[in-house]
């Protein structure tokens, strides 16, 4: 009888699986002239996660993506530049952007460090939220890539 209960307990436990990663959505966002957007970060761990968001402008060519300091022509208002996400928390960050020059492209790099270590290395996971802003939202990203010869 005991074995039956243990088997039932194991089946109950084994099928209740979780996800082990931090996730960002959406990874890419396209906007027309007016860009009021948001993205969600999900902490799938059981420990608090420190998050720091740093914006960078970037350009693309055949050699890949090249980051630089955020252009002065990009006026970005972020709801938060950093946060502490609780276990399993989903945190939605909002932003408002106005670009003097279109198209404009920038990336919000979210660096996440799990917990605090007294000795050893802190491992930082960086997930980008990439923003493309054009005159018209439709095919904005494709247009930027096409203009870069990609």
């Amino acid at each position, binding site marked *: 009888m*005991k074995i039956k209960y243990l088997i039932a307990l194991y089946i109950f436990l084994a*099928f*209740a*699986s979780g996800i082990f990663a931090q996730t960002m959505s959406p990874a890419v966002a396209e906007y027309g002239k007016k860009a009021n957007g948001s993205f969600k970060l999900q902490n799938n761990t059981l420990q608090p996660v420190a998050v720091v968001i740093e914006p960078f402008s970037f350009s693309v060519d055949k050699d890949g993506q090249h980051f630089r300091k955020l252009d002065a022509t990009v006026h970005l208002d972020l709801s938060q530049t950093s946060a*502490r996400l609780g*276990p399993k928390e*989903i*945190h939605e960050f909002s932003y408002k952007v106005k670009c003097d020059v279109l198209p404009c492209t920038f990336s919000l790099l979210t660096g996440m460090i799990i917990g*605090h270590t007294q000795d050893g290395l802190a491992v930082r996971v960086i997930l980008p939220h990439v923003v493309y802003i054009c005159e018209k939202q439709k095919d904005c990203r494709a247009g930027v890539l096409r203009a870069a010869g990609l």
Partner: protein
Amino acid sequence: MKSCLLLLLLAAAPASAQVLQLDAGASTLYNASGATATLYTPNSTITAGVGYSNGHVILNASDTWLFRGATVTVGDKQFGFSFDGVGLGLAVKGLSFTKQTDSTTVTAFAGLTGAGIATPYITAVRAQNAGAGFFIVHKFHGAKLYSLEALDGGKYTAAQGITYQYGRTLGLAASGGVLNGTGFFNGAVSYKPAPAWNFSAAHESYLFPDRATGNNAGFSFTPAHFSLQGSWNESTYRGLTVVGETIGAGVRVGPVIAQSNVYHSGNKTFLTNNVTEKIQHLTFTQTETYSAQQSAWAFGGGYTSNRMSVSLNHSIIFLLNGEGFQQVTGISVSLRLHDTTLNASTVTTPFGKTLWTGYATDYVQIGDAVPGVTVRSHVGGRFIIAGVVRDASGAPVSGAAVEIGKDIAYTDAAGAFSVRARTAKPQALAVLPAVFAAPGAWVCVDAPASVAPGTPINIVVKRGS
């Protein structure tokens, strides 16, 4: 017992929350079986457990949450206070809290105390007496002061201690008082003239009901692949003095570690030789113990990976049940499948009885399709409070945590942080070294107590504890 376990699991399933940790197991080693459910929510941790131990049903329930920077627990909690070789373990059913600042940590409790039952799958308190107490640790200029006052039933503890560390070279410790009704005094010194050398000496006295004293001195020399250590110990109890010496040496060559030690006390001498080989996930050990012209051998091996660990230990021990030397085998297995960990192990007592423990742990995501609480932040608040965190040399500190009002901000690569505020009123500021994302121990050197939007904030921190 079985019906309680099923009831616990069924009741937990439909709960609307975030993460549920389930532990269940049984053991003849702990002489206890039971199950515990722990619910992790953004603001609190709730635990409930039921089990059976030594002919009694045991229950465990607690709720832990943060209140104005203090961790508050109502229900069952087990404490371990220790400093300078002095330790006091307490199992409490009642109210407790811990508040920590950069320099001081205060823990206090009040409620019913008694025997604690601690297994990997259930912890509980068998309430027997009324008790209360507090433990304070205060750090200043390389020194730590400890103060422990507790009343556990009829036993009183009032112990004070101090430790002082001068760089990495010299360490001093002293403590004294009454521990569970027994008077004591301890003192210790350690001296490290070079990274590979360490010398230490200590004295401990327990004053009543029977006087017992102990003295020891030792050294160790540990260059890169070699180690040499020795110690001298003396104890006096009820007029009887016993002296013992030990000396040993070890060497590490690639994956092989060899260690030999000689123990001498009175007319008894033990020699132990131990060889350990570590090859990727595999570990093998061989031990020979030589005493009174008789050798005893032990062999062991294990495999460890992220998903599984297995160890098998075979040894010859002298049983006290009249069977003399017998071969015994101990097995330990741990297996991880998805979010479930299964553990099983056996151990043989000196009386020849083989005891076993088996338990499982699982983390279950429950509630709606959304696994966790969603927090939304909006571009609101026209005031911005911003600043920079630097170390004493002026270099920016990335990953520093600063609490402004109710918000926690982290510094970026340039050491800068910012939060939005809806009013221009000043807000309280606190540096939180315990939750720095930057690795290592940090302390705050200089920071304003309150800040207002538009005023540049400069915070200085340094490494240290």
